[in-house]
């Protein structure tokens, strides 16, 4: 059982809430668009060998919304400022889905500063084939379920009938996605041009049954990032950390320790 602690840091006129645990090299985990599960098996595993810091994105979870924020790059700058406030240099960045986009943006901002970059089915660039699933036209539960290949895993994480609190959190999260990633939806047209300067060794992990971000996107990330390798996880959907937590934690821990 990992003891997660809660704290908050004032930054950019707002407050960013942090959930953290573990000892070891610092690892900043950027959560996905539908929020994060504190104490998920994946995070617990990761905290066995690293100092895991999970900021709640501004407007998600316990962090208040920053009304001025207009782009995912703004969010990346905010998290960069957070690292500076925490006095952390050379953190490893682990980005899950939407958080992967934020991590990739952060890596391009100070290309030598990131120790390791882990992108798990990241949004952020336009898929060469297919489109990123548009959450605007599906219900909260249908969107969250689309992140899972195995629906039993969804039931285990969120319950077969997610609570009203959870639905409300998803609606708030969705509103934030609209506020900062509405158009183009969930990708940047400039990010691919900037990824080439990232120095960090990068692990890209992707479920082969991802219905949110097409797997084709992985190839584009691998082709653009100078030092990236791809791990495709079989029979797994978009939420790799929730569907195959042990497998992903193993991959990430050994990649960071390398």
């Amino acid at each position, binding site marked *: 059982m990992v003891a997660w602690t809660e704290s908050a840091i004032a930054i950019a006129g707002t407050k960013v809430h942090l959930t953290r645990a573990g000892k070891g090299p610092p690892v900043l985990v950027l959560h996905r668009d539908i929020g994060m599960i504190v104490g998920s098996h994946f995070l617990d595993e990761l905290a066995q060998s690293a100092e895991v810091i999970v900021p709640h994105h501004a407007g998600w979870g316990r962090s208040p919304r920053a009304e001025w924020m207009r782009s995912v790059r703004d969010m990346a700058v905010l998290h960069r400022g957070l690292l500076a406030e925490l006095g952390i240099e050379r953190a490893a960045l682990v980005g899950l889905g939407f958080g992967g986009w934020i991590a990739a943006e952060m890596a391009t901002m100070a290309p030598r500063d990131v120790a390791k970059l882990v992108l798990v089915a990241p949004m952020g660039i336009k898929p060469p084939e297919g489109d990123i699933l548009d959450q*605007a036209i599906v219900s909260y539960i249908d969107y969250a379920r689309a992140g899972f290949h195995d629906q039993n895993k969804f039931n285990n994480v969120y319950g077969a009938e997610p609570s009203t609190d959870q639905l409300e959190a998803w609606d708030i999260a969705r509103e934030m996605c609209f506020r900062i990633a509405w158009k183009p939806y969930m990708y940047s047209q400039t990010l691919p041009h900037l990824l080439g300067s990232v120095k960090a060794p990068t692990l890209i992990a992707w479920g082969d049954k991802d219905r949110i971000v097409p797997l084709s996107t992985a190839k584009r990330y691998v082709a653009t990032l100078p030092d990236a390798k791809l791990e495709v996880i079989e029979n797994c959907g978009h939420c790799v950390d929730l569907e195959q937590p042990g497998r992903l934690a193993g991959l990430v821990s050994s990649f960071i320790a390398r």
Partner: protein
Amino acid sequence: MHLMYFTEQPMSAYDATEGLKYGATALTFSNKHFDPAAGSRLYGQYLEQYIYAEEVGVDGIMLNEHHNAPFCMQAKANIFAAVLAGATKRVKIVMLGNPLPLAENPIRLAEELAMIDMISKGRLVSGFVRGGGQEQLATGVNPAYNRERFEEAHDLIVKTWTVHGPFRWEGTHYQHRVVNPWALPLQKPYPRVWIPGVISKETIIWAARQRYPYIALNTSIPQTKQIWKLYDETAAAVGYTSGPENRGYLARIHVAETEEKAVQNAKQFMWMQGEFTGLAHPVWANPSGYFSPSGRRNFVEFAVGRAKNPRGNPTFEEQRADGMIMCGTPKQVLPRIRHLLEETRPGILAVWGNDGNVSQQDSMTCIRLLGQEVFPQVREWAKELGLDSPFEADAPVSIAYAKDLTRPVAAAE
């Protein structure tokens, strides 16, 4: 009393069973079911209805727009307004309204409206709306900034109409290097602005603060009274007394020569499966960020099917019983209209006369009976009850032009 005719301009020539099969009649319901030949015919019929409505004595034609849906064929209300500006002589052309947040360039809207006002020789009423949730999705406009865009676009348009250019606009959602359109409204200080809506508190308060008439769209009598309570309180707080000239109401009223025929046609008000804006997924109608955070909890439950539709899906019979749909011969509907007038005291009444598959002949009969047998009596009663329209009351176009305020105008901002 200002009496208007309204039709949603239904695209009634598609097979309604296709919508039921698909499970939606909006946003993603394929336009392969749209038949342009039928569309062309229907546009002609709707134009014929408007012109006839002027002939039989209505004061105004109410226009609106929607996107990606069969229930309304107007994708751009200004197009029909422009047609009517040339094709009619006397009626007010009442936009209820242009969806401001959908405008990427509000100056363009200000120009179009100024042209309509000039071509119609000053007959434009330029209502504005936020646009339904589906409209944001259909046009790719961010629903999370809907209200901000509505207010900023409004401020920019009013400035464009009232302050000579060139000037520069550096706003939050709109930036314009040179605002200086060579088209300005004929009406001064600017065309009247009426704000239609349902029960969104924020919009009611905003309209009352501007002193713009609010047009309640077929709300129940108790809801309508709540709207006027909030409007009146807001008006008092900013220093004026609101009255019938601030109040409009859209009623669904179908009249025919016989009750049987009227009921048969009025059932077509249920044509969109009982929903005003078509059968649609709740998250289309209320995309995240579009609606008031105070309603979030109830909404999410509705959106996943755990709570009933807040509107309750009343049947035709229920709606007829409580007056949400009025139908019958003119003699039969008049008492219900009298009741509505007494209870809610509007100075503006829009009649939504026909929907769905009502034949052109029956639609025209309805318009004739409204003009010849219903409206004259309504006008009499309006006089008796003191229900003056904004024109009759010579109400100021907005609070900025009021001379009767009990507080300085700054209080309204």
